[in-house]
């Protein structure tokens, strides 16, 4: 507190009047270099465990390398192979197909369930919420094993179909070229629907009741009310839910690995599984790395597009 020591009546110090003088870097309100020190630990960890491996992966994708011996630089050949290979192309197509089950269906179901559960009160609401959210808490591998049993040729699903007289529909679900991918997708739906519902429920609780009152006075029926109040009110949640579930769907690995290992044939092969197989079974590390890069770019692209579409009118 030097100011108090100054004799009263003395002219103010020159620095106070010279407003044009550049502010010192550590003046209040100015960004301070010391800030970098605060983020340094996190930044260091992020660099070591995320950025560096990412860059290294990109670098490896330019080599033909078996993972043991010296690799040879091949430029973009690995990328060309991805687009030329029937198998890898179909893996990406399967991933996009799975999006319908991982993302689209859960969003719709989640919203419907949220709208229904929101009308419940007391213990019933808590119970339903917990039950529907449960799959999020269980390890995916455990879920996969459980559903493998449900889908088994002699399993409960086929048993149920027999009981209700739909025996003609009985299938070896995970062994069918046609039904294996949707069957895996349904498991994904089962997992992510709870997450969607909980997020939508949280969003709905933030929508003021008077908006619904206003909509009703303004002549809205339940459907118009949903599109006028609920859906716009859930825009933020919708964006988050879509991004999360799309990422989950595109990079799905453990579920497919446990239930079908990509089979029968390549009918349930997905990019993550292809990366794993190329890198650790076929010793084509370069190709696996290139696939990983393509998958990353695809996820980035899709999420950016979704955020743009959903949040555009928000601004």
């Amino acid at each position, binding site marked *: 507190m030097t100011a108090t020591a100054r004799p009263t009546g003395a002219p103010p110090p020159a620095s106070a009047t010279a407003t044009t003088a550049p502010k010192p870097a550590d003046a209040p309100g100015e960004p301070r270099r010391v800030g970098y020190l605060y983020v340094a630990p996190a930044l260091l960890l992020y660099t070591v465990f995320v950025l560096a491996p990412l860059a290294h992966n990109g670098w490896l994708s330019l080599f033909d390398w078996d993972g043991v011996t010296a690799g040879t630089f091949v430029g973009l050949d690995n990328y060309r192979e991805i687009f030329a290979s029937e198998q890898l192309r179909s893996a990406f197509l399967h991933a996009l197909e799975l999006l319908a089950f991982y993302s689209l269906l859960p969003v719709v179901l989640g919203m419907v369930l949220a709208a229904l559960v929101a009308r419940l009160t007391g213990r019933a609401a808590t119970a339903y919420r917990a039950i529907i959210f449960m799959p999020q808490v269980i390890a995916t591998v455990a879920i996969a094993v459980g559903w493998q049993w449900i889908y088994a040729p002699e399993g409960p699903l086929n048993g149920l179909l027999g009981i209700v007289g739909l025996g003609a529909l009985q299938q070896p679900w995970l062994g069918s070229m046609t039904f294996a991918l949707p069957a895996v997708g349904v498991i994904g739906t089962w997992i992510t629907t709870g997450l969607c519902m909980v997020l939508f429920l949280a969003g709905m609780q933030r929508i003021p009741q008077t908006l619904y*009152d206003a909509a009703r006075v303004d002549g809205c029926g339940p459907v118009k009310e949903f599109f006028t109040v609920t859906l*716009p009110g859930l825009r933020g949640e919708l964006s988050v839910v879509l991004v999360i579930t799309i990422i989950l769907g595109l990079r799905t690995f453990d579920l497919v690995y446990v239930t079908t290992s990509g089979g029968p044939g390549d009918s349930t092969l997905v990019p993550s599984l292809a990366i794993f197989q190329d890198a650790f079974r076929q010793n084509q590390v370069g190709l696996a790395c290139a696939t990983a890069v393509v998958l990353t770019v695809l996820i980035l692209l899709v999420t950016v597009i979704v955020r743009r579409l959903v949040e555009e009118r928000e601004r």
Partner: protein
Amino acid sequence: MAEIVLDRVAKVFDEGARVLDDVSLSVADGELLVLVGPSGCGKSTLLRVIAGLEGASGGRVTIGGRDMTREPPARRDVAMVFQDYALYPHMTVRRNMAFAIRRQRAEEVERRVAAVAGMLEISDLLDRRPRALSGGQRQRVAMGRAIVREPQAFLMDEPLSNLDAKLRVTMRAELIKLHRAVSTTTVYVTHDQVEAMTLGDRVALMRDGRIEQCGSPRDLFERPANAFVAAFIGLPPMNLVEAPVEGERARLGAAAIAVPPQVRARLAEPRVVVGLRPSAFRHAAPADDAALAADVDLVEDMGTDVHVFFAVPGLRPALPGLVRAVDELSGPGADAAVEPSVECVARLGAGRPPRAGDRLTLAIDPGDVHFFDPSTGAALR
């Protein structure tokens, strides 16, 4: 434009709470009726029943001569203004205002929105979203959204409560002018008795799901039907003290007040509740015989006048149960103390304001005294 008639409207919630108890009320075409009362009195519920947002458990709601009791809100052709404005956040001001008339022809919608926006001076805000507006601007948009519809009636649920005090006074004046301009039947809910007194053609004061009194603001102020109305209307509130009646006079400590014979005739026991407006007190002149010794507890200097709070020892607060609903009265005097005394408030001229601890001698204006039944609280006159 339409008349609104409520005929013995009741509302019982599922948990068995009787929120509206056979309320009958009629609002004339073009009238502005204010529903006022303490929180929980059922005034908002009554408004929601008129709007159709709540179904009535009994009775009839008629709007413009048509029985609307079972009709959904959309069919009632009423516009509502909410306390939090309830503007659709993702729509611009223009779309918010046009939303309820979206089925009209586009040019007609455009014309009406433009006209109302001009009237409310919000034309330059039409392309903004509610989030980008101040509280006062949102309030105007909410009003505009209601006016654009040209409905049979406006229903307003504490529309000024979210504004700061100064803006509230401005908007109150604008509301009066606005109502004069469009003269649409309006039911206005508020808990603020100042709003009720200044806005309403008529005021209906509610308590516990019932209408205690309905009349012009002046009526409620000058001829309150009971002690509750007397205590609710007026600021600072009326002083209510229970006084023994000795002969022709009620004894208030050292002072005595003449009790008219027709009042005395209706008393079952020799005691009466005396209601004194703060303005009934003045500094006593030596000649005054009805003077009261007052020990000043607290002085609020309002500028043009001062509110003086003082205790009158030896008196009992009147009808504590009856007036407890009035928040302002739940002061220290309301609970039984060891030595009974009543906290009173007087409004005195600003000249030489007293200080806490002073002893004043106050005279009571005998023309400004109200009497109430000590057991029922009903006005005696």
